[in-house]
């Protein structure tokens, strides 16, 4: 083995001193390297000492190396030594490296240096004197002594830093220092220069954080109240006093919404959901809900806003689905479009228009863009080897072929991807291919396809991105994905497919082909606008006046950031391109993924049946919005957030503020005489309001929601401290104070109702109705906190806003929607029936099945009782109980009852 040490590296001291232990038991080479040399290939920062073992592995921690040497000498580890070593690493080292840094690098002296280690030194001294032993772990020198001595030597060898009063430490240190291996180690490392020998090494180390510094926690930090300047307070008070008068007139609503010169025109799109999938919560938060919050916010700012979305209806999936259900593709789209529209209506999504892609406008605009690309030479033709079914007389699109996966041998692999191993497949490589329609064997033939010449457009794209990205609000993941595509160079992309259900290709020889969805789906935004207004080009060919925000999950970034911009740039028709591309990460469900086929997760249409209001869903989804990182939907967390944040924080504050006005002041907002404390509160609320604006302008939707909750927390505290319910019974001055507190609180509630509008529109409207907030104040949000409910204003009837969610309610929902521990049960079901949605089993279970299950439950119940009576092995009982619970669950499902929550604690 080989030991790497470096002059002036403090860690080498104990290592060299301990190395003596290993002598004679293993061959040890000692090499001296520079402090900057990277010995261990996988460490970012250079680190010495390092011990390279004969196996090739590295030990790179000082105490691990010392421990290794001692272990070689036959020593057995014990708790006390372990404890000292741990203390050395976690307590002594941080303090000591700070002290050495101050001393050697910053040239400090005396107490400045000693201050940080004094506590640690005293601790050693006390331990030594208490156990009355010369060494740390007893009568003889041990690993702990060597490691601690080595660490302390550079500092303590200067008598100035070895306090006289710590006599036990003093003698311990002297004893060790005079030993021969220690002396030699000290000489090698410090070269008789004393502590200054460490200087070159320490200079390169990052400055140690002060050991007294706050411990790092993962908990959200309590909001610290910012310090406010007098000016800020004065400004907040002025704005407050101006009140309703400072509100601008309300923008008249126009229909259709069109861009207005000289105003901020915001065009918002949400990724078009694919028509034949019912969206799950992840889809909803990923695009439509996020875009909705921003659209509502944008309207509150009085920006001229158009928010559009629609269903993406063309493509293979629709065609196959139509075949399965025996309908025409158009009928399938009509059916599912309504389902989508209903779901979004229930979630209160404020589309200005919700359209679809199967319209004549879509054909017209897509073909126009295509023709422009064609005449400008951005479309290539190429021959492709493809499977053709002779019986159906057509080329087969990937999804129309099934066969054996060439990678894993799975028998039902699709032509584009294998469901089992997940690998992407080239359809011609499938073994034993079959036409999905007629089950005959297709043959390979060559056919023509059209390609978009992306490499030719790459330069324009880069120029455009160079102009657009800096200073825009593209999310980091969108920037990253776009950049990585560009870095690898763009390749020509095929834009045609052998299908009937799609936009026809207007070119001779391509009559039986249509455009591939990813070429024309993004054009859907344009055609949906065109169906909304014949002046659609004022939005879409107006890049100077229109700010385009596009919302999507990150898998959609390439189409919106690369492909569509390329098509639009190549078509040279002054299209409006995306200014802000807002992509979310993924939302998981409990511990896994949403899965329609396994019936795991909550899907849009089921959310309505849970009895939980849409606004609660909106709140929770936005609270966990996968912004910057993946997040997970959890039922328990939903319950917690509803009960703590909504019920106890927000709801409690708004309700109390309103109730005080009704109960103590007859429903009229009382006179407010602001004290300096109240003024400071005004300024704090204003500050938080401004933060909310800053965040939402950057589309940081989740973070802005926290600002609302923070203001409400300030409000609760304010009420709690000032106790208006007591003061109202006191003297005249006390009663006036109660009035001021109540008035200010109810005004904060009014402000919150407006800030909440993008997130929880129904709750917001309820609060505004309860407070009788004047109409302009309901629909405009300024950057200052105004007094919108002046003294004498009469409020309406106040009632609670939120309901408590109960554990058993949530538990039964969790069971109903699968996830977590139930996943495996669903897995099994998935194998026995092709469509295992829980609801379906309810309707299919016949009376015989129910009877059979009941019998089994009774039988299993007896087994459990017997085992318990015999006082059998715990594990055995638990296993049988689990079986019983499972049977009961199945029975409950079969009977169509919500399964009982398992009693007692969850066992796993």
């Amino acid at each position, binding site marked *: 083995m080989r030991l790497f040490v470096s002059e002036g590296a403090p860690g080498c001291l104990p290592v060299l001193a301990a190395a003596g232990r290993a002598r004679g038991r293993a061959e040890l080479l000692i090499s001296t390297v520079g402090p900057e040399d990277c010995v261990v290939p996988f*460490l*970012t920062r250079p680190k010495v000492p390092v011990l390279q073992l004969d196996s090739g592995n590295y030990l790179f921690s000082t105490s691990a190396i010392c421990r290794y040497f001692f272990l*070689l000498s036959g020593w057995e580890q014990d708790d006390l030594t372990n404890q000292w070593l*741990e203390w050395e690493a976690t307590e002594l080292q941080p303090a000591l490296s700070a002290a050495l840094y101050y001393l050697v690098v910053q040239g400090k002296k005396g107490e400045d240096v000693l201050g940080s280690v004094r506590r640690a030194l005293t601790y050693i001294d006390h331990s030594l004197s208490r156990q009355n032993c010369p060494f740390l772990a007893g009568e003889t020198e041990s690993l702990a002594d060597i490691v601690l001595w080595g660490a302390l030597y550079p500092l303590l060898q200067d008598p100035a830093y070895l306090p006289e009063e710590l006599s036990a430490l003093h003698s311990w240190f002297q004893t060790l220092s005079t030993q021969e291996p220690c002396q030699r180690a000290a000489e090698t490392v410090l070269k008789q220069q004393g502590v200054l020998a460490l200087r070159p090494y320490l200079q390169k180390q990052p400055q140690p954080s002060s050991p007294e510094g706050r411990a*790092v926690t993962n908990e959200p930090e309590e909001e610290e109240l910012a310090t406010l300047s007098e000016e800020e307070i004065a400004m907040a008070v002025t704005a407050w006093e101006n009140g309703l008068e400072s509100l601008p007139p309300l923008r008249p609503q126009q229909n259709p919404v069109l861009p207005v010169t000289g105003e901020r025109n915001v065009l918002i799109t949400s990724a078009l959901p694919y028509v034949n999938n019912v969206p799950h919560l992840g889809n909803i938060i990923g695009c439509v809900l996020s875009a909705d919050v921003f659209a509502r916010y944008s309207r509150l700012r009085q920006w001229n806003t158009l928010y559009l979305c629609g269903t993406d209806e063309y493509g293979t999936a629709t065609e196959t689905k139509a075949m399965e259900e025996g309908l025409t593709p158009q009928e399938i789209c009509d059916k599912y479009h309504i389902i989508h529209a209903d779901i979004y209506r229930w979630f209160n999504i404020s589309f200005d228009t919700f359209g679809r892609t199967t319209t004549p406008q879509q054909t017209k605009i897509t073909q126009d863009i295509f023709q422009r690309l064609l005449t400008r030479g951005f479309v290539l033709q190429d021959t492709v080897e493809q499977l053709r079914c002779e019986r159906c007389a057509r080329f087969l699109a990937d999804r129309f072929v099934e066969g054996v996966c060439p990678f894993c041998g799975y028998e039902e692999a699709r032509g584009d991807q294998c469901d089992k191993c997940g690998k992407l497949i080239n359809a011609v490589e499938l073994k034993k291919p079959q036409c999905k329609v007629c089950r005959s064997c297709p043959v390979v033939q060559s056919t023509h396809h059209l390609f978009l010449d992306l490499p030719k457009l790459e330069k324009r794209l880069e120029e455009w991105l160079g102009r657009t990205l800096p200073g825009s609000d593209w999310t980091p993941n969108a920037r990253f994905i776009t950049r990585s595509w560009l870095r690898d160079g763009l*390749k020509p992309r095929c834009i045609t497919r052998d299908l009937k259900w799609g936009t026809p290709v207007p070119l001779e020889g391509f009559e039986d082909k249509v455009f591939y969805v990813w070429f024309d789906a993004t054009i859907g935004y344009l055609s949906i606008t065109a169906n909304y207004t014949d002046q659609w080009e004022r939005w879409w060919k107006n890049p100077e006046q229109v700010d385009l925000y596009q919302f999507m999950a990150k898998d959609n970034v390439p189409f919106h950031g690369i492909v569509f911009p390329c098509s639009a740039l190549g078509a040279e028709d002054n299209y409006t391109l995306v200014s802000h591309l807002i992509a979310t990460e993924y939302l998981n469900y409990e*511990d896994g993924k949403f899965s329609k086929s396994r019936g795991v997760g909550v899907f849009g249409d089921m959310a309505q049946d849970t009895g939980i209001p849409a606004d609660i869903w909106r709140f929770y989804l936005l609270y966990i919005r996968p912004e*910057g*990182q993946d997040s997970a939907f959890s039922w328990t967390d939903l319950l917690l957030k509803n009960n703590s944040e909504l019920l106890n924080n927000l709801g409690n504050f708004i309700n109390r503020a309103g109730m005080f006005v009704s109960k103590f002041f007859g429903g009229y907002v009382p006179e407010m005489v602001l004290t300096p404390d109240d003024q400071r509160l005004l300024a704090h609320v204003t500050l938080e309001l401004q933060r909310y604006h800053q965040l939402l302008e950057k589309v940081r939707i989740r973070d802005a929601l926290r600002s609302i909750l923070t203001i409400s927390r300030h409000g609760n505290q304010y009420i709690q401290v000032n106790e208006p319910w007591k003061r109202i019974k006191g003297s005249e001055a006390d009663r006036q104070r109660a009035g001021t507190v109540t008035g200010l609180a109810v005004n904060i509630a009014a402000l919150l109702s407006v800030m909440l509008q993008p997130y929880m529109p129904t709750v917001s409207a309820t609060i505004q109705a309860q407070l009788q907030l004047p109409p302009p104040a309901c629909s405009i949000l300024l950057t200052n906190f105004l007094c919108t409910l002046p003294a004498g204003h009469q409020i309406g009837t106040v009632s609670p806003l939120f309901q408590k969610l109960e554990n058993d309610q949530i538990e039964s929902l969790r069971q109903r929607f699968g996830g977590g521990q139930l996943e495996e049960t669903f897995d099994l079901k998935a194998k026995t029936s092709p469509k295992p949605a829980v609801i379906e089993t309810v309707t299919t279970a016949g009376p015989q099945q129910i009877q059979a299950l009941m019998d089994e439950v009774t039988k299993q119940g007896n087994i459990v009782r017997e085992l318990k009576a015999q006082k059998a092995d715990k594990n055995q009982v638990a296993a049988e109980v689990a079986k019983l619970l499972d049977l009961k669950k199945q029975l409950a499902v079969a009977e169509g009852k919500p399964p009982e929550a398992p009693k007692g604690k969850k066992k796993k």
Partner: protein
Amino acid sequence: MAAAAELSLLEKSLGLSKGNKYSAQGERQIPVLQTNNGPSLTGLTTIAAHLVKQANKEYLLGSTAEEKAIYRVTQIDGHSSKNDIHTLLKDLNSYLEDKVSLTGYNFTLADILLYYGLHRFIVDLTVQEKEKYLNVSRWFCHIQHYPGIRQHLSSVVFIKNRLYTNSH
């Protein structure tokens, strides 16, 4: 996660029935265990090693001198600040390049403790980061499926197919 919580998890995974009581010391809440026969023990890994011996599962401390030495290398990890965590993950990732577990091929206490210590950080990683620290993810996923280790901690989802590779 507080150290005491990590220790309780460890206790359960070791199959120790009697729940020890831990007190905490100082601002950083260093756990202290009062043993039945002897002085109290202070510090996370010290107590952890003690518990392993108590459960007669010494093999978890490693069988060779090399393994015994390594299991301790990880002790500081649980205390790392958020800023350092990425350097740490990067290093750990290259470290695990050719190893199944921290000590090489055998599952030891080091794996358990590092798993508990890193859990709160790994939970917060993005899909992209998990893919960046591929070896750490592989190791972490492996440990969390080791019987009795994960307990109530959330199972972290790792996506098997790569999303950020540059092929398209």
